[in-house]
């Protein structure tokens, strides 16, 4: 399983993501700089977390318009798998790969804590090693993770089983609509999520609940 991790100025969880990908899949991901115009040949592109361009304009808005995102968008439309985590979710949403938008947390504060995630759809490239309805622990660390969209989009997301992860057991940390923590596109090739599974994969992290997510990549 070959993967690439895209790095924009201000991204800061690229090392965490690369570590997780390498430790579970056994292959070191390629790091791709934002000014590049063409992706190397890979099975998966990950847009990691951080504060691209300081999140100064609107989270992800500037990164979404960078040279490499044009190629990612084009290839995603042809079926390349894309995973966006935290700021990465915001970036791929801004790039139009996923519907909706992520706005300020309901209480207007950044929050770093462990939440419960329910796997709503286990037939995706990132969840196939878990049972439908499985609940895993996973940390979040964000100030703008409150997912919103218009009622029609929400209806389609729910109706098409495109909500991949939902905050469970009253742990919604940001006020997201329908407790949405992660969604996918219609083809199931693009997934975006706010929580950080890369920070819960080894005993040091307290739990290894999110290791199966990365293991899913091997089966996909």
């Amino acid at each position: 399983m070959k993967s690439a991790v895209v790095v924009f100025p201000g991204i800061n969880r690229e090392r965490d993501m690369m570590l997780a990908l390498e430790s579970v899949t056994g292959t070191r991901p390629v790091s791709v700089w934002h000014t590049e115009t063409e992706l190397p040949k890979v099975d998966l592109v990950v847009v990691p977390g951080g504060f691209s361009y300081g999140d100064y304009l609107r989270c992800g808005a500037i990164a979404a318009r960078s040279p490499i995102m044009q190629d990612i968008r084009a290839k995603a439309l042809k079926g390349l798998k894309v995973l966006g985590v935290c700021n990465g979710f915001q970036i791929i949403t801004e790039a139009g790969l996923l519907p909706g938008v992520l706005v300020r947390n309901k209480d207007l504060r950044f929050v770093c804590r462990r939440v419960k995630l329910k796997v709503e759809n286990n037939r995706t490239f990132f969840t196939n090693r878990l049972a439908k309805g499985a609940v895993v622990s996973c940390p979040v660390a964000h100030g703008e993770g409150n997912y919103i969209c218009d009622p029609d989009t929400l209806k389609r997301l729910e109706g098409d089983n495109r909500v991949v992860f939902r905050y469970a057991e009253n742990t919604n940390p940001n006020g997201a609509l329908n407790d949405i923590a992660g969604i996918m596109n219609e083809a199931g090739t693009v997934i975006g999520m706010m929580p950080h599974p890369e920070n819960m994969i080894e005993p040091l992290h307290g739990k290894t609940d999110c290791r199966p997510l990365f293991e899913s990549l091997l089966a996909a």
Partner: protein
Amino acid sequence: MTLPHDTKITPDLVKQHGLKPDEYERFVKLLGREPTLTELGICSAMWNEHCSYKSSKKWLKTMPTTGRHVIQGPGENAGVIDIGDGDAIVFKMESHNHPSFIEPYQGAATGVGGILRDVFTMGARPIAAMNALRFGEPSHPKTRHLVSGVVHGIGGYGNSFGVPTIGGEVNFHPRYNGNILVNAMAVGLARADSIFYSKAKGVGLPVVYLGAKTGRDGIHGATMASAEFDDHAEEKRPTVQVGDPFTEKCLLEACLELMASGAVIAIQDMGAAGLTSSAVEMGAKGDLGIELDLDRVPCREAGMTAYEMMLSESQERMLMVLDPSREKEAEAIFRKWGLDFAIVGKTTGTLRFVIKHRGQVMADLPIKQMGDEAPEYDRPWVPPKTQPVLKDVPAPNDLKAAILKIVGSPDMCSRRWVWEQYDSLIGSNTAQIPGGDAGVVRIRGKKAIAVSTDVTPRYVEADPLEGAKQAVAECWRNLTAVGADPIAITDNLNFGNPERPEIMGQFVHAIKGLSEACNALAFPIVSGNVSLYNETNGQAILPTPAIGGIGLIADLDTMATIAFKNADDAILLVGCHGSHLGQSIYLREVLGKEEGAPPPVDLGVEKKNGDFVRKLIRTGQLTAVHDVSDGGLALAVIEMAMASGLGAALSALTHEQLFGEDQARYVVTTRPNNAAVLLAEAGKAGVAVAQVGTVTSEATLKISGGPSITVAELRAAHDGWFPAYMAGEL
């Protein structure tokens, strides 16, 4: 030589620059002529208390700063210690008190930015941050606003920059009503053989300006931080800098990339007193002159004067001396990261600090006298009055109510509201998040470091010498409690106006106490910062020498945590039973009094007990460990229960035994079948250990012959105060 003396230097102007008449006279004598306005500005920037340490230097020199792990002691951007395998830890703590009071978000944010820069300037990647915060009493009208702004600012900068904030302290006290304390600590990891220093080497080499552009923010920040406040403190808001963590993150990556290329000869970040201080330090340390051409300095706005450029404290800037053959390569790295890169001057053999702007010489000063030979004072001091040891402190009428009051008090309640706003996990290496005795981050494999910040200001106020010893001892104990070998510390000495002999007396005694403790515990001071003039309208803060310590954990599998692990484990107290209630939390929260002598610190016992606990941890005999500090044995046991969801059955204990804050103590748990073995080992080692209870599966705290309190009740009290206070419900 002609210099533009277009502004008449009046006594009033000298006073506005924070220089005393005799200091100004000394400056004029040094020059042999009247200074230009730019020169006066540079002098005020270099000779103020914040940059020159003129009141404290004499005493700082007496502190222990060497040891077998020390690679670099005080005097550089940060201290450096050797942790084996070619790894070095670079760390320092620094205050941003004055700006944070005036503008809490930016003040705290740039405090974090400044200390991170100090660490990566030396070639280290920051791997952890901590902070020590003191606010006024909760009922003071400004406190809520200040807490909110400071916490938001620390998170806003650290989270975006991408460093895990793994712990800290938050306290409230009326003596901080007019001067809050924001002490930020950063810890970085470097290779021991590639540490970068600020000392310039070689004549005629390019001096390069890197990072963000220079603006008009922060002018006179260091001078502001060297004076007391009055009722008009808020008028000083323009002296506060504005932080840009995005640029700092880019600056970090660009600097580390450039350092790895081998092009950097010397590097200094622009912190307090910006371009002035960084250039003077590089030159003075290297016995070289520096000549700067301000026309080449990247500016945020047109028309900035030499005076403004030299005194700007715009953030995220660096000065370097580069290998001239590598200029192109260096510039390419900085352009890649979208940062400014400009050759703004050169090193000279003249020992002069020369500033040119628009074809004119705006300043020509002797560099050594501006830097490391700045004025130094031996300020008069009087020994602090100490307080009598309190005897016969009454027991509470209602023990359960007393416990719940303490657990839910502003100083003892959960700080979750605060630390959940900090990213504590980034880096994937966090082994202990806030809430335990120390934060722990992995270096690699099983190797980790522990970090803790500590001081109990009310103890220092009551007896600066014992209180300062206690701060070091508690830090050492917290590192020990997670199973680390304590290695070295950084200190942040926050005091009032040193021109008052009683404040200077506090300072002198505190230094004596710190030194004694550091010597006894082989725990040297490798970096630090002094913040004086923390006073408003003549009222000084509590003397607050904050200590930030680093410990080494060789094997993470033996790391200890505070949470109880199993029902039936024996709860043991290491150290004598409590007896000392002077200056205790019990006395203050339950009896409403803050008096008496603080608990004395016996450094020999401290070392013996700590070494014993560490040995037990390493040999796998302990299931949980917690140091005993504020609130005594009772609070230690309660915190262990709340962290686990298990309960505790304690034997019959007096209120002195429950709440006494005697030092050198730990609560530990061990499997029931190991208790006797452990007690026998303690006897052999001459360490006082007694079983005080048992862990129970029922989540209740039961005190024999006393009340029962469920862990749910304790948690409700503990978790409730902070969010309710911040929501304005209290």
